[in-house]
């Protein structure tokens, strides 16, 4: 009986220590999970930035409202057809109407004739048809832009934004990861 107080006191201290440790461990685990998530996100973003590359191989003015370009996936990762809308195409050119220089961001188009850029076909590097992961061109909704594959793109402008076809035109293309490539006529 004489040791009852000691036992109770020791028990209470043990409970206090356990509770403190529990609070500490609970938050430590949360912090660790967040830190692991942060490291994972950082690696994911860095990996996309390093491995996602595209190169504008050729640019040609078809007429005052149409530009054709070929773009090769020079990176090491494939780009899904559904992610193509995250590709940016910016034209830098002289307008036909008043001869001013301008830059124009073009939206991704899924329908013919509307202003914007569209994929009309996808080939392998040597110009042959894609056998692996084919796309349902034009205006693909499935398929993959694999490394070394070439997208053939047509940019359609509205008559109000018509190009002075005798002047130089440049095209900047940005991948979903933000890496860019510049091509000129």
């Amino acid at each position: 009986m004489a040791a009852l107080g000691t036992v109770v006191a020791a028990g209470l201290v043990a409970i206090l220590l356990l509770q403190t440790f529990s609070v500490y461990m609970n938050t430590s685990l949360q912090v660790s999970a967040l830190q692991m998530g942060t490291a994972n996100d950082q690696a994911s973003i860095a990996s996309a930035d390093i491995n996602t590359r595209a190169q504008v191989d050729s640019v040609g003015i078809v007429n005052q409202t149409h530009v054709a370009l070929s773009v090769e996936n020079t990176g090491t990762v494939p780009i899904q057809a559904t992610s193509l809308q995250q590709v940016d195409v910016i034209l830098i050119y002289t307008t036909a109407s008043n001869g001013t220089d301008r830059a124009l961001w073009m939206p991704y188009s899924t329908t013919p004739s509307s202003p914007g850029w569209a994929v009309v076909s996808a080939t392998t590097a040597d110009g042959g048809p894609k056998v692996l992961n084919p796309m349902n061109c034009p205006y693909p909704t499935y398929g993959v832009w694999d490394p070394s594959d070439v997208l053939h793109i047509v940019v359609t402008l509205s008559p109000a934004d018509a190009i002075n076809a005798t002047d130089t035109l440049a095209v900047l293309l940005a991948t979903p990861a933000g890496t860019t490539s510049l091509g000129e006529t």
Partner: protein
Amino acid sequence: MMTLSLPSMRPPPFIRSSNAITEGFFVVAAVIAVSLVASSVIPGVALISNAFAGQAAQDKNKVDLQMTVIFAYGVPGSTTVDVYVKNTGLTSLSTPSIEESVVFFGSTGALHMLKYGGNDNGSGAGGPPYWSFLLVDDGSGTNSTSTGVLNPGQTMEVLIATAVPLSSGNYYFQITTYVGTSFDYTFSI
């Protein structure tokens, strides 16, 4: 014939024992002491732990909010510059969040922090210089601003209006997001 035997009616031992009374006081004192320590230590530990968790969450926000300036364009004599900024991170940015950004722009040696001009051609900002933005890409390819959100992979156009016409030379652009991450771009006109 059955006989009943009653238990003895002695009081419990601790009532009688002075040692037991001492033990009782000791137990009560221990309970009070532990309660006092618990009420001060556990909230303190929780507070410190939450501070660490908050810092970790803030670090994650900074990592996840990434932007890349893909292009900037202006011509000599003009008073406008278009800068295309792509969300290359993992989180979306709402229009109010973008409005909280801080933008610096200028030529070498003449860098200025610009006011946000809103969508009223800068009249709310007292005229140029100011910056505004346009969510050119809402993901549907329709050049619409209907979603009001800059999702990962999408691009916004930052429009800069300068007070004086641009001259040829190098220019610097920097945008700092509401979480404190900065992204810059140097280009020439």
